[in-house]
């Protein structure tokens, strides 16, 4: 009978705190969003599963010696996993559209306003009792506006590890919600004539330009903003492997097996930060609200900058493509294409939106570098 008591004492039922049950429900909610709603399933499925596992009592997944403990400390504490993901994303990214039309970089820059503006929001939330965001916290939250998952995870792991779970979930959720968040803002800031603008076809880009591009980005980055080089550098390495044509087998592995393995592990590790103590706080609500604000401001500033460029270029630029500057590759570019088609069924903006879209990835990596340089945890 003693054994029976020991066993009962070790069941989940006898050990659950209600907060853990809530967090397991949150985990299942993320799984639902990933599977049924197809919200960034590659990340949200392992994150949701990790959230369930980490909240199981007795099993100790995130205690020293547990699986998620190892995965988190090896992969996220060190920053290795987000950097490997960034290398893989670099190996998957084609900068052709941006090299053909480099002015698009301005749109990728403008959309980063969402990040820095959100800093104020995070600090002002401290006026509400219960919120006590430091500048480091505010910076980690604001990077959600960069619409780039690995950048957000990397910065949060450096500046606000306790908020990492909520920040990652917010970042990926809003990236999945781009088709819902962006169109109203895009339509509010543009008129139908602007949305109808058809852009000139892009010139083809030579392989040599594509090879030199990542090296050039690396050089500017190491001269101006070395703090950004972990992110920018690994991204450029991936892109160089893709374009140089002499290491195709490495590039293929970086884009497939390596990024897949790291994605599973990264997702589980992020999920392991969705513990009840860290997530069931009023701060999580603040993070979710601020993330939406950051996305909105970023989209708006991108569109407004594109409107300005439209004016200055004599109407050659469709202002919609500014929305793609937040990154969220390739979702935001697809949304631009869709809204453009609604206004003019012959207006295919996808390739033109890819320029600001990949520019947004660089822009938010640069923004992250600035925050790393100026804000200490």
């Amino acid at each position, binding site marked *: 009978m003693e054994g029976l008591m020991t066993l009962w004492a070790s069941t989940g039922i006898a050990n659950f705190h209600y907060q853990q049950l809530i967090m397991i429900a949150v985990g299942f909610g993320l799984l639902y969003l990933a599977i049924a709603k197809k919200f960034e399933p590659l990340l949200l499925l392992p994150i949701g599963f990790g959230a369930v596992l980490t909240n199981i009592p007795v099993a100790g997944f995130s205690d020293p010696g547990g699986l998620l403990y190892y995965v988190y400390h090896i992969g996220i504490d060190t920053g290795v996993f987000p950097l490997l993901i960034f290398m893989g994303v670099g190996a998957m990214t084609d900068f052709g559209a*941006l*090299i053909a039309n*480099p*002015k698009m*970089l*301005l749109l*990728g*820059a403008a959309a*980063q*306003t969402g*990040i*820095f*503006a959100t*800093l*104020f929001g995070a*600090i*002002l939330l*401290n*006026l509400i009792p219960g919120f006590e965001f430091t*500048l480091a916290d*505010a*910076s980690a939250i604001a990077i959600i506006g960069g619409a780039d998952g690995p950048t957000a995870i990397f910065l949060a792991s450096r500046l606000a590890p306790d908020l990492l779970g909520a920040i990652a979930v917010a970042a990926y959720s809003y990236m999945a919600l781009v088709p819902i968040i962006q169109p109203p803002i895009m339509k509010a800031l543009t008129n139908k004539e602007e949305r109808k603008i058809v852009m000139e076809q892009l010139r*083809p*880009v*030579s*392989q*040599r*330009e*594509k090879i*030199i*591009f990542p090296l*050039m*980005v690396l050089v*500017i*980055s190491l001269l*101006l*903003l070395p703090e950004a080089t972990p992110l920018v550098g690994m991204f450029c390495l991936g892109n160089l492997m893709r374009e140089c*044509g002499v290491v*195709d087998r490495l590039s293929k592995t970086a884009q497939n097996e390596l990024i897949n393995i790291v994605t599973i592990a990264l997702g589980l590790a992020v999920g392991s930060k969705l513990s009840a103590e860290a997530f069931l706080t009023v701060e999580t609500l603040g993070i979710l609200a601020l993330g939406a604000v950051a996305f909105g401001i970023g989209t708006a500033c991108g569109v407004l900058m594109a409107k300005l460029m439209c004016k200055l270029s004599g109407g050659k630029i469709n202002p919609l493509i500014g929305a793609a500057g937040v990154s969220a590759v390739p979702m935001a570019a697809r949304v631009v294409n869709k809204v453009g088609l609604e206004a003019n069924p012959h207006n295919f903006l996808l390739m033109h939106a890819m320029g600001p879209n990949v*520019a947004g990835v*660089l*822009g938010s990596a*640069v*923004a992250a570098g*600035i*925050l790393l340089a*100026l*804000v200490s945890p």
Partner: protein
Amino acid sequence: MENNLGALLFEAANLLLIGMGVVFIFLTILIFLIKLMSSLVGKNAPTPAAPVATPNINRNTGKSAQDKKVVAAISAAVHQYRQDNK
């Protein structure tokens, strides 16, 4: 606390100015460098040997090899038919 908030807001304003400044400077330099680079190497360089195209090319080869086979098979069949109908 209020005081602290003011200080934080001031720092945030500072970050906004410097941050957006550096982002724009960084990406504007990149614009000029891309243009410079393209003018130096882009126009003369051959169009990319489109790595993605390679499998397509192979596939086409495959197809045309197949087409040839089909044509050969048909020639044979038609030849046979002619023989039979003589």
